[in-house]
């Protein structure tokens, strides 16, 4: 199974080198990759149907308990077949749809990565690896949505989708980590055993909430649904594959996968029912106001996902069965409708529902596919959709006391979905063919065969539901923790309530289709409400963050060195000042201080005068001279206080510094009084506060006892171990020799730096700048 997942990635990697050939005629060959995988997974059908579970374990990060554990059970198998099967058709379709496109190889690369990652999600038995694959699908989706990277709206939608799904991914990670620590394992199949432990844990609500956010963002549930319509900016094969058939169902998969572990609690069920209901109704109503075919399909997809969440929320055996069936139903008809839309768009150049009509005359096979898909979508017998809808009604009708209310909601949603399906599958082909479309011709068979296959499958399964009943649906329901043994899919249940409800749905739906005509007017009218939609609010949030961060950055990173310095010092003064004021005892023990002598006082006075003169003089040369005096007086201080080595060094360095300054200085311009009075006062206050702080700090430290063990060691062993009597020198060249070696190395680097700065010639760019300044 690892091989199967890696195939997708390897294929993409291969394209980096072989992409050139793919752009030519070999594109169709790439469809062999998903086809091969599809056949590979088909061979497991029988094994799985016999109730077996295939697993494979590859150690990845064993120390963290993260393994690449893969499990293939009924639920995974349905998804695997969908991913590879629809993947095969989409790959083939793309070969014609994007024929000759400049970045066709890239497109296949992203698709390959996506396919591998998506297989990874549904096969992973470890939550951490599931998370990794989860994020990989978000990433590949980002690249695919932004595929037309020259359009701003494409890029914007891609970023929006990435932000929302990536945001959800973070929740998945944290939820997974908490769940793993509560359950004591990261392996999903092992968590089943500790189900009670998890649901009684105090963290249960947090875990579930985090998993919910992840699933809702990925599966476009209200209020995170808005990235999906934007994602329609991607080329149609992507919308078909990622944004209706597979990726958006990853959230559904996650919920289903965790139903046996986390499900059957009040919080789990009621949240899912509420969110699912709101999403399915909200999105279904939205389809009424769309005129763009892909917009209609996007909202109807969101609505269908809402139905799935709602069904998982019901959580009964019937509901889960309905969910399993509906996943397949939806994948079949929605993929068809998307592919049909793609053909229409490709051939006529328009997706505007108000303009398209009568295309059956020129695109007959496509019209058949569209019609069959619309039938299945509407749930008209004998389609597979009819089965699916029946199961939904059965699930809602048998759900305790709120059965009637929930059924009513499901009916409304289904009516609106029927309308949307007809709009996309039938409307463009019926009526009169406008003049300007009369020259439209059939596309390559690569494009119209895939939707036709899917549409026919949707009808075939409806007529012979036994094809999938035992092989796919039953194991899937079993893997959800229910007893799938008594699953029975039938087209004809006899005359009962459900049939009546179905008939009502179909009747009202078709009436609606003939009564309401989509117009631009309504679409524009509804756009006025956009300002309260979750999308706008999220975007406003994003803008606010952006504004705030640039404000923040410009405040602190403004490019003025002295602002940086003063900010740092101000912070230091505030923090240290507060601590000092709070903890200082101001107890100075004057008796321990050395006595004052007159020559010391004079030295210090000279030094202070020198400093003040350095600061306030208007002449640079005077400042340097004063600085020299300050340096000399420092060396005097060293002489007074038993540091002859320091005094000598300070004296020599001071001499050299003054020489250096004088050499450079008279090449530099005169001092300018650049700062105004106010700034100087402000800086002065800050500086004095800083100086005072250091003084207090020094006095405080002096009041503390001093530990001198290390000094004593050096002093006692200077002669015994190092045969030297000048302890300072012994420390430098013997005890801490390596430090000194580093120091002279640093000095060398400084000298080389100086040499390089002055001796190396300017670069051409600098010369131009300099000349321009002249």
């Amino acid at each position, binding site marked *: 199974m690892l091989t199967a997942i890696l195939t997708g990635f390897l294929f993409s990697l291969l394209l980096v080198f072989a992409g050139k050939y793919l752009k030519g005629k070999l594109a169709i060959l790439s469809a062999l990759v998903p086809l091969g995988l599809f056949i590979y997974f088909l061979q497991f059908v029988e094994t799985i149907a016999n109730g077996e579970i295939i697993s494979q374990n590859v150690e990845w990060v064993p120390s963290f308990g993260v393994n690449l554990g893969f499990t293939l059970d009924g639920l995974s198998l349905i998804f695997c077949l969908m991913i590879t099967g629809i993947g095969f058709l989409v790959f083939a379709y793309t070969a014609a749809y994007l024929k000759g496109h400049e970045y066709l190889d890239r497109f296949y690369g992203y698709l390959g990565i996506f396919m591998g990652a998506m297989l990874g999600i549904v096969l992973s038995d470890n939550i951490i690896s599931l998370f990794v694959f989860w994020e990989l699908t978000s990433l590949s989706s980002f690249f695919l949505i932004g595929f037309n990277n020259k359009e701003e709206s494409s890029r914007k939608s891609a970023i929006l989708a990435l932000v929302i799904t990536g945001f959800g991914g973070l929740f998945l990670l944290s939820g997974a980590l908490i769940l793993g620590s509560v359950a004591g394992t990261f392996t999903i199949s092992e968590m089943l055993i500790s189900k009670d432990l998890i649901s009684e844990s105090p963290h249960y609500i947090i875990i579930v909430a985090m998993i919910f956010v992840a699933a809702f963002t990925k599966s476009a549930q209200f209020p995170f649904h808005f990235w999906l319509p934007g994602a329609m900016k991607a080329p149609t094969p992507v919308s078909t594959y990622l944004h209706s058939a597979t990726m958006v169902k990853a959230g559904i998969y996650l919920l289903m996968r965790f139903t046996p572990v986390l499900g059957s609690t009040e919080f789990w069920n009621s949240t899912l029912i509420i969110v699912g209901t709101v999403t399915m109704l909200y999105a279904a109503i939205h389809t009424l106001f769309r005129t763009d075919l892909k917009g209609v399909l996007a909202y109807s997809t969101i609505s269908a996902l809402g139905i799935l969440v709602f069904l998982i929320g019901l959580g009964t055996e019937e509901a889960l069965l309905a969910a399993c069936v509906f996943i397949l139903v939806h994948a079949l008809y929605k993929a068809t409708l998307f592919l049909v839309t793609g053909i229409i768009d490709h051939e006529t150049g328009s997706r505007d529902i108000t303009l398209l009509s009568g295309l059956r005359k020129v695109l007959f096979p496509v019209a058949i596919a569209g019609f069959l898909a619309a039938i299945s979508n509407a749930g008209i017998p004998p389609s597979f959709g009819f089965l699916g809808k029946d199961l939904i009604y059965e699930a809602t009708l048998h759900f305790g006391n709120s059965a009637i209310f929930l059924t009513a909601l499901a009916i409304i949603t289904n009516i609106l979905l029927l309308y949307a399906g007809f709009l996309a599958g039938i409307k463009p082909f019926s009526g009169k063919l406008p003049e300007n479309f009369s020259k439209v011709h059939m596309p390559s068979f690569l494009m119209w065969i895939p939707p036709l296959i899917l549409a026919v499958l949707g009808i075939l399964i409806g007529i012979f539901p036994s094809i999938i009943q035992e092989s796919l649906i039953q194991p899937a329901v079993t893997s959800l923790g229910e007893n799938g043994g008594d699953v029975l899919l039938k087209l004809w249940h006899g005359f009962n309530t459900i049939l009546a409800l179905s008939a009502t749905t179909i009747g009202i739906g078709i009436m609606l289709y003939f009564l309401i005509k989509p117009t631009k007017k309504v679409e524009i009218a509804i756009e006025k409400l956009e300002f309260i939609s979750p999308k706008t609010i999220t975007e406003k949030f994003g803008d606010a963050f952006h504004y705030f961060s640039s404000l923040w950055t410009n405040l602190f990173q403004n490019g003025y060195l002295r602002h940086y310095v003063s900010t740092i010092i101000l912070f230091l003064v505030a923090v240290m000042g507060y601590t000092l004021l709070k903890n200082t005892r101001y107890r100075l023990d004057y008796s321990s201080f050395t006595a004052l002598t007159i020559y010391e006082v004079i030295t210090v006075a000279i030094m202070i005068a020198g400093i003040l003169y350095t600061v306030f003089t208007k002449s640079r040369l005077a400042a340097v001279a004063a600085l020299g005096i300050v340096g000399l007086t420092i060396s005097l201080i060293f002489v007074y206080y038993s540091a002859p*080595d320091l005094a000598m060094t300070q004296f020599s360095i001071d001499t050299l510094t003054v020489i250096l300054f004088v050499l450079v200085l008279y090449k530099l311009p005169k001092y300018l009084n650049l700062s105004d009075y106010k700034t100087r006062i402000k800086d002065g206050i800050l500086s004095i506060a800083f100086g005072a702080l250091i003084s207090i700090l020094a006095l405080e430290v002096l009041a503390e006892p001093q530990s001198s063990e290390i000094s004593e060691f050096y002093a006692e062993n200077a002669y015994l171990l190092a045969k030297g*009597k000048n302890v300072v020198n012994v420390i430098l060249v013997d005890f801490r020799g390596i430090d000194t070696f580093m120091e002279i190395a640093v000095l060398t680097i400084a000298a080389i730096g100086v040499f390089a700065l002055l001796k190396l010639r300017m670069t051409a760019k600098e010369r131009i700048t300099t000349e321009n300044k002249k």
Partner: protein
Amino acid sequence: MKTVILKTASNYLLPLLLLFSFFILLRGHYLPGGGFVGGLIAAIAFVLHAFANGLENTKQLLRIHPGFLMPVGLALALFSGFSPIIFSDLPFMTGIWFPEPLSVVGMVGSALFFDIGVYLVVVGVSLTIIFTITESA
């Protein structure tokens, strides 16, 4: 600054100061002094000579570019660090000494060579910086 007095004085001062700097360097282990101070004094001696006689004359006197003293000094210091490994099978930077003390210098050991390395580096660095700046100023 090319006065006759300074010029004449500097000619005598240079060897004197250099000798003094070497003296400071060698006695560093026992009395105030050492490689750093010694090196700085030597650098000042050359700078003084350069001020009095012009940079070109000083450079001629030096023959080599002062920058070459830096790697030589670094190598010497490093060698003194490695010497215990080579000669006595002791860890890096362990002090080893010749058995008999020299007059003035005292015990001669790896530490002294290390200090000489420091001295050379300090002379090299100071002179490189000052000379480079003087030339381009």
